[in-house]
């Protein structure tokens, strides 16, 4: 197989590449915010909690849609988003301006939703859909509808975050000061939660429940370490995310590896590579 020309020859690879790049852009914007807000564990928890939504969607799909329906992707996305949002709403409300450590609460959500999701899949719908693909990602499952969902999400993030990024910067830096200044901090908190859930659910097919965290965290970690200003964290994170996603997809195709794990490992290697300068200094 040719490492580059395959992407011109095979439409499924084109979809995979486009999907990965859109997800990289979306996560590139959200990732520094997640890291700055110390929502890393929260993101991981919501990702694992999404498994409950996937299980319910896979169980319901046979009763709602005819087999091989083109709306399957949209249905799974809608049900997973709905279930995850309903389950995560109490978490979103209790973590707003919470001074007490909320990690125990997040851990509880994590365990409860994932456990319930696996139980539902085992008891009600064994053999229905490929749950493993949602755990580790299967880029070959990407449909045009998935790409449309990612694109709409990208536009939503642009309008909600990018346009008012200086307000978001203050919110991330000092939530109390932002509140006193009259920014609707609770709305910002809930919007952030909503976007985080949407990104996680829409990225499940690419990276899977377990590996989506690499997209959510590593670009932000890189950006917060090297960017000279808050605004530039977005560009640093975007650049890192795009570069690592492109490399990961090409490597996965060229070496015939699973895309999700390849993307995650590529991002980790890129991040470790960026630390060499620091290691030399020490």
């Amino acid at each position, binding site marked *: 197989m040719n490492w580059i020309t395959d992407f011109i020859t095979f439409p499924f690879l084109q979809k995979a590449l486009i999907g990965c790049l859109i997800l990289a852009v979306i996560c590139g914007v959200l990732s520094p915010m997640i*890291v*700055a807000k110390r929502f890393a564990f929260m993101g991981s928890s919501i990702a694992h909690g999404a498994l409950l939504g996937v299980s319910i969607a896979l169980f319901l799909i046979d009763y709602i849609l005819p087999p091989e329906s083109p709306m399957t992707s949209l249905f799974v996305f809608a049900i997973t988003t709905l279930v995850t949002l309903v389950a995560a709403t109490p978490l979103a409300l209790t973590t707003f301006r919470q001074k007490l450590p909320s990690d125990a609460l997040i851990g509880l959500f994590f365990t409860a939703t994932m456990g319930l999701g696996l139980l539902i899949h085992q008891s009600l719908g064994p053999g229905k859909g490929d749950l493993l693909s949602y755990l580790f990602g299967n880029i070959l499952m990407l449909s045009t509808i998935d790409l449309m969902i990612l694109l709409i999400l990208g536009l939503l993030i642009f309008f909600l975050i990018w346009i008012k990024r*200086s*307000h978001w*910067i*203050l919110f*991330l*830096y*000092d939530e*109390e*000061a*932002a*509140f*006193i*200044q*009259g920014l609707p901090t609770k709305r910002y908190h809930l919007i952030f939660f909503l976007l985080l859930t949407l990104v996680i659910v829409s990225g499940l097919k690419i990276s899977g429940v377990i590996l989506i965290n690499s997209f959510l965290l590593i670009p932000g970690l890189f950006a*917060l370490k090297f*960017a*000279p*200003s*808050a*605004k*530039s*964290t977005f560009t640093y994170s975007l650049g890192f995310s795009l570069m690592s996603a492109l490399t990961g997809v090409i490597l996965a195709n060229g070496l015939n590896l699973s895309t999700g794990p390849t993307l995650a490992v590529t991002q980790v290697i890129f991040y470790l590579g960026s630390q060499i300068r620091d290691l030399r200094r020490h």
Partner: protein
Amino acid sequence: MTTVQVRELSFSYPKAAFQKADQESENFQLILDRITFEVSKGEILGILGPNGGGKSTLLKILAGLLKPTSGSLTYHLEDKNRGIIYIPQKDQRNLSYPITILEFLESARLPGSKIPRSECIHALERVELKRPVNQPMSGLSGGEFQRVLLAKAFLQKSQLILMDEPTKGLDGIGQDKLLELLGEFKKNAAVILVDHNIAQVLKHCDRLLCLNKSFHWHDHKSQLKKNILEDTYHCEFEHLLIHENTDDILNHDHHKCSHHDDIHEHKNKHEQDPVDQDTKRADQE
């Protein structure tokens, strides 16, 4: 014109589950009890009182971070959102976030109008902070951070400045400089500050609020008597000189802390023998 008017304001924190309910209240711990005071543009109000007396809680209520349990709180501000600057006691900055001084000051901008870089630099000069605007906020000391917040207050034309223990961690010269700077700010705003440094508060503030939960006294500093401070702190101040020329020594370090059992005894003593400043001065000489 009055900037903020507080009438009969009370506040209670919900008690933690492990705390035993006392007779005062079953589920709530009373922090502030019917506090009344006001402060106007051109004035600095100093809030004095012991730890746990409710000073910081009162500032948070004024900043809008906490809601009072009862009572009224009236602001007379052109725009409440940019009218208040609150400088907290604890440094709550997210130090891992690389926001620059310029970006932080730009967040003060009003809807639809961006503050030019030159104005940000001018605001920093105004608060005597010699730092490049592109420097990250994480590199600033606590005192410098306070000054950046004051620069933001200047840019926003804030009308109410709330400072919680601003002199903490500063040396004598630093304290004087900061409080003199507040003297500049009060020309266009009302300033409320909480501080344990009685000498500095008496020197730089116009009005005082002595606060210890249910006990409070509020008036111009010229009306302050030693027994009021002693009743607030439940302590005996041996060498405190008040109503003096502000350049005189205001020695608050030499005081005897009494146990709560002795409070009433002290109160009786002060009632019979109010402080005579001239006698005290003569004693010291």
